[in-house]
């Protein structure tokens, strides 16, 4: 594999914004593994991205916002747009866009790990605090989240070092902790019993959204429900200096 000679800020941005090809990502991950300082730079860049997104999750609404104004406008314009129905009617694929946006951050995009477990395990000497986040129901990601958690917990426990970990799920990632959906109920029960410092945490916003859609949400008994959204939790932990790993 071709090695990257110099990792520019533009390349780091392209990495965290998921603008690189699979080969380019692999090359950069290799470089990150070999250079903890570069890993820290990538973490900082990702942290900024999360902060910016968080800052506009809740925006102040004007008097018109949410009022009948918008609907009235659209209804009024409905008549005007009637002549365009022929054009609009020929379009297909309206549903192609993925509205399921677990954190309001991912929009269905695949995130890559920007801190490899080996690097994370080797880098820290004091007590480590890690928040793992999974926002997708993709089977590989659900498994990877447990694998990463277990790997880190094992490494720290065997080294006699402390680690506190939260595995936060939101959006499709909630499947990991849903009693009637998760293929990992036994594994989660066992991990929770083995590692007292591990918490499995579910996004309240996702649960509410599912329930609003008529889905009954039953969670594994090891689950702690957040009072708010997963994003709030991640940002709070970032503020407290926790290391954030997106799965």
């Amino acid at each position, binding site marked *: 594999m071709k090695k990257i000679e110099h990792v520019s*800020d*533009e390349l780091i*941005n*392209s990495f965290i*914004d998921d*603008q690189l090809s699979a080969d380019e990502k692999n090359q950069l991950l290799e470089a990150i593994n070999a250079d903890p300082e570069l890993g820290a730079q990538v973490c*900082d*860049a990702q*942290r*900024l991205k999360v*902060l*910016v*997104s*968080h*800052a*506009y999750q*809740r*925006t*102040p*609404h*004007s*008097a*018109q*916002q949410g009022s009948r*104004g*918008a*609907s009235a*406008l*659209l209804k009024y*314009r*409905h008549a*005007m*747009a*009637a002549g*365009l*129905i*022929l*054009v*609009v*009617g020929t*379009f*297909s*694929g*309206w549903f*192609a*866009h993925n*509205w399921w946006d677990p954190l309001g*951050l991912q*929009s269905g*995009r695949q995130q890559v790990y920007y801190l490899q477990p080996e690097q994370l395990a080797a880098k820290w000497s004091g007590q480590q605090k890690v928040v793992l986040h999974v926002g997708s129901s993709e089977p590989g990601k659900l498994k990877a989240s447990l694998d990463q958690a277990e790997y880190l917990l094992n490494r720290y426990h065997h080294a006699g070092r402390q680690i506190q970990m939260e595995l936060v799920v939101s959006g499709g990632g909630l499947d990991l902790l849903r009693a009637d959906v998760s293929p990992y109920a036994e594994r989660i029960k066992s991990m929770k019993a083995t590692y007292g410092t591990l918490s499995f*945490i579910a996004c309240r916003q996702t649960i509410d959204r599912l329930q609003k859609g008529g889905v009954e949400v039953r969670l594994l008994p090891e689950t*702690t429900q*957040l*009072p708010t959204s997963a994003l709030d*939790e991640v940002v*709070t932990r*970032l*503020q*407290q*200096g926790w290391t954030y790993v997106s799965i």
Partner: protein
Amino acid sequence: MKLLSLLFHSREFHRQLEESRSKLYRVAYAWCHDAALADDLVQETLSKALSKASQLRDAKLLQSWLFSIMSNCWRDHFRRLRGTEELDGLDEAVLVSDSSPEEDHARNQIVSRVRTAIANLPMGQRQVVTLVDLEEFSYAQVAEILNIPVGTVMSRLCRARKELKMALLVQQQDWSQVAIRRIK
């Protein structure tokens, strides 16, 4: 049957516009930090989208098309105010509203700090960073929305994030002093 299908698609179009409203508003607010102005921008955008619906050739491009309209509305807004000045050269004092009740209340909070840092960016950088970070648009989509080259998108993003890093991550030590909150 055909008429029913056309009616369905028309309603779908309106539904999609309604659903896009909050996304548009969020970005509009991040551009101007003024709730009333952001709302006006969104209204104008939706209105133009309805009247120009025939220009949308691919339904998959609806989101970037809407944001492109909003970017033009935003530009027009300042042209009306200031002739033909470029957005990058605008006096930031005009764009930054720091007196909303929410910001007053949360001045010392992280949200306020981030918004202030964003508001302090030149408008071109602000638009790029918010489109990428809030709506996860690709660089190519942002280039299309703002009608600028992809290279300009990347350089503006790079400069914006450098500024944000300077403004926000140096405060990291203060944030780490916050007592850990138990969530059980």
